[in-house]
């Protein structure tokens, strides 16, 4: 069982629609990060959230850290084909230097 579970595992939607991806855990994290990975490349950081309840916006992407610091969500408004990719959440627990990744959500935006 992985520490960070993401849902859905796969998501395919039409361009222009909105979507939300979830990252859940039973553990508390000092921070959570979201990465996007393109085929044949390593993941690239999108955002880091560090405060419970924090909301960060990156253009059409909105990231939220749960109040209890156990979960996070990524909301994309008016999805574009360029949003296609594998989205990974990652977290570090207090007093632990290990960076743990979630199971991933593979997003496909259909033109």
């Amino acid at each position: 069982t992985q520490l960070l579970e993401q849902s859905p595992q796969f998501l395919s939607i039409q361009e222009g629609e909105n979507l939300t991806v979830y990252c859940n855990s039973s553990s508390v994290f000092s921070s959570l990060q979201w990465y996007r990975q393109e085929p044949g490349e390593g993941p690239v950081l999108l955002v880091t959230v560090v405060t419970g309840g924090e909301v960060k916006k990156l253009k059409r992407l909105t990231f939220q850290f749960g109040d209890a610091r156990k979960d996070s969500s990524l909301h994309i408004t008016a999805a574009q084909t360029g949003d296609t990719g594998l989205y990974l959440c990652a977290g570090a627990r207090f007093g632990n230097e290990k960076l743990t990744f979630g199971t991933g959500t593979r997003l496909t935006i259909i033109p």
Partner: protein
Amino acid sequence: DAGITQSPRHKVTETGTPVTLRCHQTENHRYMYWYRQDPGHGLRLIHYSYGVKDTDKGEVSDGYSVSRSKTEDFLLTLESATSSQTSVYFCAITAAGLNTEAFFGQGTRLTVV
């Protein structure tokens, strides 16, 4: 782009043979990580290092060992490769362990036949 390179990028090896993957960084970052990526599992931590000669196990460390004799190099060794170790392996570096961005290499695709 962060200076992190993995070698080799692709490798096919036979069951039972030892294999070593190399991660080299030019950023002088303290923390280095080895992950494997398999469908449905995201990235799973194999081993990580928090300094020269300081390493610790991750969640899937069985069958793997690591060494870090210099800040810039982190080696991952499969003692006796098995088909279950067929995967894409990623090295990552961070300046500090918490709340900081992880930079990744481009990955090594390993096939064990």
